[in-house]
């Protein structure tokens, strides 16, 4: 910096190049990332050590090496891929149904007072219900097949999406709505160009929340009664004290959760470019 300043003062038309600063900033990134891996690795090593020394019996928690070997076996035998496919299908179906319901109801409630009066009180009441507590009723109503599991996911997904989309629609800047009026936009154009894009950031927050809840709801639903899927695999392992299989199942759950979260973040970056470029300045 000082050299650049000096050159500038000596009369040369040298502009302070902002790039070197940027480069040093990015150079710091990976190094910090590397440091952040130390403590988790130490924990895994201690865990392995405790298992080898017999301090941690396998019936309580299997050794990391054992868990890795089991994961490989489960993949080779096809047990894990099948279980993942079944669970993923439940989440996707439930999520799709819940998203359509949540966003649809938010549009009805958000875009008109009549809609709000019709929809919002009911949604606020249902929201107060502990939805995991609904499982006994769901079993009575829908049996123990796929329906109650998918519906539980759908129910869990719909509330964060409803609440956030509704708040997003109502939070759209009234000044922009005035602009739309002075630009002679009709009702449909107002909704399309101002209201929906304005509500999108909040809807995406709801999307991330709802995906988190979707996996949670699936785990609970699969614990209760299942004959396939990750939850079934975990429950089955409990019967045989296979803590290694249980941990593999848990790791897969969290990996899938992280994966869907990353997908939403990707979507956010694409949908909210207009904001990202501003924040990056």
């Amino acid at each position, binding site marked *: 910096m000082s050299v650049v300043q000096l050159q500038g003062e000596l009369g040369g038309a040298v502009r302070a190049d902002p790039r070197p600063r940027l480069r040093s900033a990015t150079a710091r990134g990976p190094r910090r990332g590397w440091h952040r891996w130390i403590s988790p690795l130490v924990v895994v090593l201690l865990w392995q050590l405790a298992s080898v020394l017999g301090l941690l019996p396998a019936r309580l928690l299997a050794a990391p090496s054992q868990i890795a070997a089991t994961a490989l076996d489960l993949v080779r035998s096809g047990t894990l891929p099948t279980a993942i496919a079944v669970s993923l299908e439940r989440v996707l179906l439930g999520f799709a149904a819940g998203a359509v319901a949540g966003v649809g109801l938010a549009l009805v409630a958000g875009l008109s007072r009549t809609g709000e009066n019709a929809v919002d009180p009911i949604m606020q009441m249902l929201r107060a219900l502990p939805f995991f507590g609904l499982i006994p009723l769901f079993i009575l109503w829908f049996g123990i097949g796929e329906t109650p599991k998918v519906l539980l996911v759908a129910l869990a997904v719909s509330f964060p999406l409803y609440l956030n989309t509704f708040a997003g629609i109502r939070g759209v800047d009234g000044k922009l709505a005035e602009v739309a009026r002075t*630009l002679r936009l009709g009702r449909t154009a107002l909704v399309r160009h101002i209201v929906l894009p*304005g509500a999108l950031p909040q809807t995406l927050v709801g999307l991330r929340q709802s995906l988190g809840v979707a996996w949670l709801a699936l785990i609970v639903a699969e614990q209760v009664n299942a004959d396939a899927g990750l939850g079934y695999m975990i429950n089955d392992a409990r019967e045989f004290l296979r803590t290694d299989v249980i941990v593999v199942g848990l790791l897969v759950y969290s990996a899938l959760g992280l994966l869907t979260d990353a997908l939403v973040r990707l979507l956010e970056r694409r949908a909210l470019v*207009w904001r990202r*470029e*501003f924040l990056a300045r």
Partner: protein
Amino acid sequence: MAARVPGPVSATVSAQAPGAVRPAATVAATAVATAVATVVATVRGLTRRFGDRTVLDGLDLTIGRGEFVALLGRSGSGKSTLLRALAGLDEEVEGGLEVDGSVAVAFQEPRLVPWKRVRDNLTLGLTAPDPAGRAEAALAEVGLADRARAWPLTLSGGEAQRASLARALVREPGLLLLDEPFSALDALTRITVHRLVLDLWAAHGPAVLLVTHDVDEALLLADRILVLDGGRLAHEWTVAAPRPRHRDHPDLLTLRAALLSALGVTPEGPA
């Protein structure tokens, strides 16, 4: 000659006094005046109440075609209320309001739609043929040709305000309403945007109603200066000095003193 384009004519009458039945029809009928070819906006007996506070009290105003009018007034005097009524943003005004041709507005804050690129902000709601071409031309006129694809949040204050002006002018309005659009700009930017507004006004010839609290701005730009006080237009001056004007023009200096005293500001210097 006077093609009566149905502008945002809102003559809403609301009976607020409980028990008192108001003859709604008579108010509406007497209020709307006939438009002459040289008149672009006519306001008759415009009244606006907020609760029991009367902000506009039977205000009359006529704006000629292509005329540049500045509206001054102390804060809270109802300047913006009048502008919002003319823009068709206020449905609770009483009285007559007629605008011949279309109205466009540039607000105090540029109010660009942040998720639309600058060019798409201009074409939003634009029904004329070749909207994209018109938008590009309008942006070139305000010196933003290279920012057409930029996101509004990346513009500087001056750029955003110019884009907002371009968005208003691309609609070729008969009446351009400016709601203190220069007040948030720094002094240097304000000078260039003042010049730009005069150039655009000369090139496109819309009538302009500029709401401002800046006496010098009114003196530099307007054909006619109005002072709003007590819910009515209390004072009116015609500014004959040729443009471009300089602040120290003797006519303007005289007018400035008169304006300041009309606004309740005591002139500086020994009494």
